[in-house]
């Protein structure tokens, strides 16, 4: 029987992180990019909790609470910004963000 150790969680976190980074880089829809960013933040959370359990040290879990709080604040502001953008442009595709190019 395979025992699940903190190392497995770290691997899961690394995988989530990579999926999130790839999502940010290749997807064109702002909402999906935003979801990929949330995925990265959750990868961080899983990593912190797993390491906290591995190290028998609570600081990591305190960190997670702060990350969750900040992610919520960021989501609130971010979705507001995206709505303001959508009202003007009627699109959420980043390829349409082309007013400023050099």
């Amino acid at each position: 029987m395979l025992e699940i150790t903190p190392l497995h969680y770290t691997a899961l976190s690394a995988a989530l992180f990579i999926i999130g980074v790839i999502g940010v880089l290749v997807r064109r829809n702002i909402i999906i990019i935003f979801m990929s960013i949330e995925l990265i933040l959750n990868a961080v959370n899983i990593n912190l909790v797993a390491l906290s359990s591995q190290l028998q040290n609570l600081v990591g879990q305190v960190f997670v609470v702060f990350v969750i709080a900040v992610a919520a604040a960021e989501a609130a502001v971010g979705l507001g910004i995206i709505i303001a953008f959508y009202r003007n442009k009627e699109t959420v595709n980043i390829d349409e963000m082309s007013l400023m190019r050099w």
Partner: protein
Amino acid sequence: MAALGFSPSDFYYLLPELILTAGALLLLLVNVIVPRRDDLLFGLSMGTLAVSTLVLLSFAGVDIVISRGLLAIDGFALFFKLIFLVSAGLTIMMSAPYLRVEGVRAGEYYFLILCATLGMMFMASGIDLITLFIGLETMAIAFYILAGYLKPSHRSNEAAVKYFLLGAFSLGILLYGMSIVYGMTGSTRLDEIAVALAAQDRSLVLSLGMILLAAGMGFKIAAVPFHMWAPDVYEGAPTPVTAFLSVGSKAASFAMLLRIFIEGLAALTPDWQVVFAFLAVVTMTVGNIAAITQSNMKRMLAYSSIAHAGYVLIGVVAATERGVVAALVYLWVYLFMQLGAFTVITMLRRRDVVGDELKDMSGLFARSPIAAVAMLLFMLSLGGIPPTAGFMGKVWIFGAAIDQGFIWLAVVGVVNSAISLYYYLRVVVFMFFREETTGSEITIGPALATALAVGVVGTILFGIYPQWLFDQAQNAAALFGSTASSAMLR
């Protein structure tokens, strides 16, 4: 280990931050109780900043750690907090006339500026990864909203979306790096991290964590190749916000970077020196070369500010007390010349002219000699011509690099300064030798005049009498690191 909870003296040392918080909340209240009184909000926010600055100055010479090792009240923090408060004050002075011309109510604008300042102050004081990260986000979230403050403007919208997406992305990368460092050291406190790292061998995972931290911070200071957001955000955001972003946010990110790398990751110094030396070279070169081709002033100054981040990074690479002093001096003089230049651009924003294109500078000398001469001074200072403050900043930076044997880095820096003169002087050519363009009269109100005067005085004063600034920076850097167990800064 101190007992659980805070001691009352913690609150005493947090007074500048607490005053700022109280002032910001008061602004929100006043905005609801007596709506449409922008002048009142302006006065209140300036008053809050002034009181906070005065209290802060009374902490000169203090060097203690408070809140059970979360915050350091030291000379380093004091130096940076002064940069933030002064730049916030100048930004607000620019904002009042700008918002009037744009026809936007001040509303929550000043509240957000104060919130951003508050976040920066925690970034300068924080000696724990959690505190630093909370400070960073307090600042960043306020800036996301500020960048998109002109809601009907497509450019402002676009700037906000881009800044938000890339800012949040960089936060994720930074946090992942922090989680790895936590995993390797078992602590989020920078001094404990330094001790733990000194006791262990370098590993691949640790290097990965270090690189992720460097990348995350690279986004915030807009270092190449993480600079893509900067030109677009700087161009689209309201001009005073751009100014604050390029000075305050950059200085705060450098404070955090110095804390993390010099205090926390001291054991990895040779490793991150390589990373930052590379970043410094590409940042300076790409920033300066891209700036040459710009026709929009805000965009040009964005690339120029990228290049300036490269110069400051040279000071970081030197990684000695002298290097830190040089970085501090540079960020301080940069405050005056950059905000001064943005004040002139804000003046050019009139009812019928957007005023941020290079051609809008045409014939400025004929229309407003004061603004043109001031702009000339700021451009010379940004280019590093003596006897301006910018020259002193560069001398100190390159001196620190040569001191540590990074002669090639100093040479790259000097070559880059020469390149940068081309596009700074082009502005001067437009101002003095081109025909006037259309547009209404340029009026300089009292707020803008004050901001301009502060910029001019700062740029000249620290150029001809830099000794005082050097001494202050020296004190700041000497106290810095005394809380860390590392002997890096000796």
